[in-house]
C-alpha cells in the first residue's frame, strides 16, 4: 500500500482516461471519453440517469469484468500504469475505495465489515486490525455511535449509519482513490451533510471521485465537475465554470439549472 505523497503538485494526474469506450453487448454505455483526475481533488461527476457514471467507476476498479459480454476499449491509467495490464487485480481494487449507492452491509459484524479488506490483504494481528477499524470508523464519523457494539451485525444499523459503514469499509485498505456512487440516495439530509464534511477532510489525504445525483452536492464539494450525458463526456471544468452562467456547452447549463434530468 503506498502512502500518499503530499509533495506531488496539484496538477499531477492520478487517473488518465483516454478514449474509453464501453459496451454491454451491442449497447454502448460510454462512447469514447477522455479526461484526467488530479491528485487530491474532488472530481464531481454529474449527469442524468443511464449516462454511464456507474459504468465509469466499474471500469476504474475493474469490477465490470464480472458482468458478462462487456467490451472495454481505450485506456485507463492509474499513476501512469495501464490498469488493464495490472496482473494483481485484487491489489488494484484495494487501491481504490468504492462506495455503492445503496449501502451494502455485508452479512458480518460492524467490526468484520471494516476488517474485511485488511484481512483479505493478509493482516492478521488483532491490535493492527483494532486500530484500522477504529481509525476508519472515526474517519467516517461513525465511531461514536457504534463503538460499544462493534460485534453487532452491520445490517442492523440505520440506512445512514450503514452508508457511513460502507465508507469506513472503503477506507479500510487505505486507498489512494475514493469513489462514491450517489451515496446520498439512501441517506437523510442531515447524514448527507455529515458525510460531506467527512469528504472535505478526506480530500487532503486522497483523490475523490464523487458521482452524484444531487447537482448542488457537486457544487458544494467538487473542485472540478464532469458532466456526462448518454455515454458522452459533455464538459469537464472547474466547478465554478460548470455552475456559472456561461459553461462551454448549453446542455451543461440546462442540466445544472434543472432544465432536464
Amino acid at each position, binding site marked *: 500500500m503506498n502512502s500518499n505523497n503530499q509533495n506531488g503538485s496539484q496538477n499531477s494526474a492520478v487517473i488518465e482516461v483516454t478514449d474509453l469506450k464501453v459496451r454491454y453487448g451491442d449497447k454502448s454505455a460510454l462512447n469514447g471519453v477522455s479526461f484526467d483526475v488530479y491528485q487530491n481533488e474532488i472530481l464531481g461527476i454529474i449527469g442524468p440517469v443511464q449516462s454511464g457514471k456507474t459504468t465509469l467507476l466499474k471500469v476504474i*476498479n475493474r*469490477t465490470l469484468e*464480472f458482468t458478462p459480454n462487456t467490451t472495454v476499449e481505450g485506456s485507463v491509467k492509474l499513476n501512469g500504469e495501464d490498469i488493464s495490464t495490472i496482473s494483481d487485480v*485484487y*491489489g*488494484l*481494487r*484495494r487501491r*481504490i475505495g*468504492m462506495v*455503492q449507492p*445503496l449501502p*451494502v452491509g*455485508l*452479512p*458480518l459484524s460492524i467490526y468484520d465489515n471494516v476488517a*474485511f*479488506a485488511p*484481512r*483479505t*490483504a493478509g493482516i492478521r494481528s488483532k491490535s493492527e486490525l483494532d486500530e484500522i477499524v477504529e481509525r476508519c470508523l472515526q474517519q467516517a464519523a461513525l465511531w461514536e455511535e457504534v463503538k460499544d457494539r462493534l460485534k453487532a451485525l452491520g445490517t442492523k444499523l440505520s440506512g445512514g449509519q450503514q452508508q457511513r459503514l*460502507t465508507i469506513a*469499509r*472503503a477506507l*479500510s*485498505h487505505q486507498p489512494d482513490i475514493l469513489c462514491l456512487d450517489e451515496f446520498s440516495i439512501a441517506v437523510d439530509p442531515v447524514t448527507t451533510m455529515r458525510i460531506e464534511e467527512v469528504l472535505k477532510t478526506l480530500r487532503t489525504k486522497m483523490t475523490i471521485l464523487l458521482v452524484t445525483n444531487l447537482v448542488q452536492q457537486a457544487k458544494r464539494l467538487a473542485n472540478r465537475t464532469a458532466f456526462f450525458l448518454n455515454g458522452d463526456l459533455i464538459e469537464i471544468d472547474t466547478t465554478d465554470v460548470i455552475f456559472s452562467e456561461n459553461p462551454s456547452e448549453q446542455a451543461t447549463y440546462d442540466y445544472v439549472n434543472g432544465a432536464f434530468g
Partner: protein
Amino acid sequence: MNILRKKSTAHLPFSETVIELFIRLCGISSILFVFGIFFFVFREGAGFLFGGLDVGQFLTNVEWQPTSLNNKRYGALALIVGTFSVTLLAMCIAVPFGLGAAIFVSEFCSPKLRETFKIIIELLAAIPSVVWGFIGLTVMNQLIITVFNAPIGLTMLNGSILLALMSVPIIVSIAEDALKAVPDSYREAAEALGATRWQVVYRVLLPAAKNGLLAAVLLGAARSIGETMAVLMATGHSVNMPSSPLSWIRTLTATIAAELGEVARGGEHYQVLFIIGILLFTITFVVNLIADLAIKGIRQES
C-alpha cells in the same frame, strides 16, 4: 389490504368458492394423512410399548433375537448405532461433495456447464434405490474387496457410499438455492474490497447462506436415515456393533423391511417393528424440524 381481501371474498362467485373449498380440502387432507400415518404406526406399536417392552433394554441392548424360541431379545441398540453410523459416514462423504458441487455450480461455472451439471444431478436423484442396492451388491462389493482386501464388500462403507450418492442431489439443489438467494450486491461489495472469488465464497457467501446450507445437510441426512432398500442390500444386513467402516451392519429401516413380512400380525415381534417405526418417525421428524427452523432463519435474516 386486509379490508380489501375481506370485501372481495364476500362477493366471490360460486365457482370460486367451490375451488377454494377444494384447495382447502387438499391442504387439510395432507395434514390428516400425516397424522393418520403416525396414528396407525403408533397404534400398532403402543400396546407393547406401554405394556411389556423393557424400553431401557430396547434402547441399550445389542441383542436382537426376536425369533429365538427360548431367549427372545429386543435390543435395538445395534440397529440404532447401525443407522446412525452409516448415515454419519455417508454425510462425511456427501457433505463435502454436495456443498462443493453447489458452490461450484452457483459461483464458478459457466451457464452452459451449469445446465449440464443440473441435468446430471437430477438424473442421479431419479435412480430408484433398488438400483443403487444392486450397484452396491455387484460393483461396490467387488470394489471394496479389491481396494481394501476385505473378505466381503457388503459393509457399512458400501452402504454409506450409496447413501452419499443418493443424498448428494438433495444437498446440491438446496444448497445451490441458498447460495443463489444471497444478493449479488454482497458479491460486488466484497469484490470491490479486493476479495478473490474464493474469499468471497468463504468470507461472505458461506456465512450469509449458512442456514440454508445447514438445511441442505439435514435434509440430506434425513434422506439417508429413511433409506431402506439400498442399505438392506449393501450393508450385509447382520446385527452387529460396527467397529470400523468395513464392519457389516443392520439399520432400523432394513430390519422393518426384512422382518415385517414374516411376523404374526399383532404379536410382540410385530409390535416391536412398529416401535422401531415410531423411533424412526421421531428421528426424521426432529431432523426435519431442525431443517425447517434453519430455513425459517434464512427468511428472517433476508
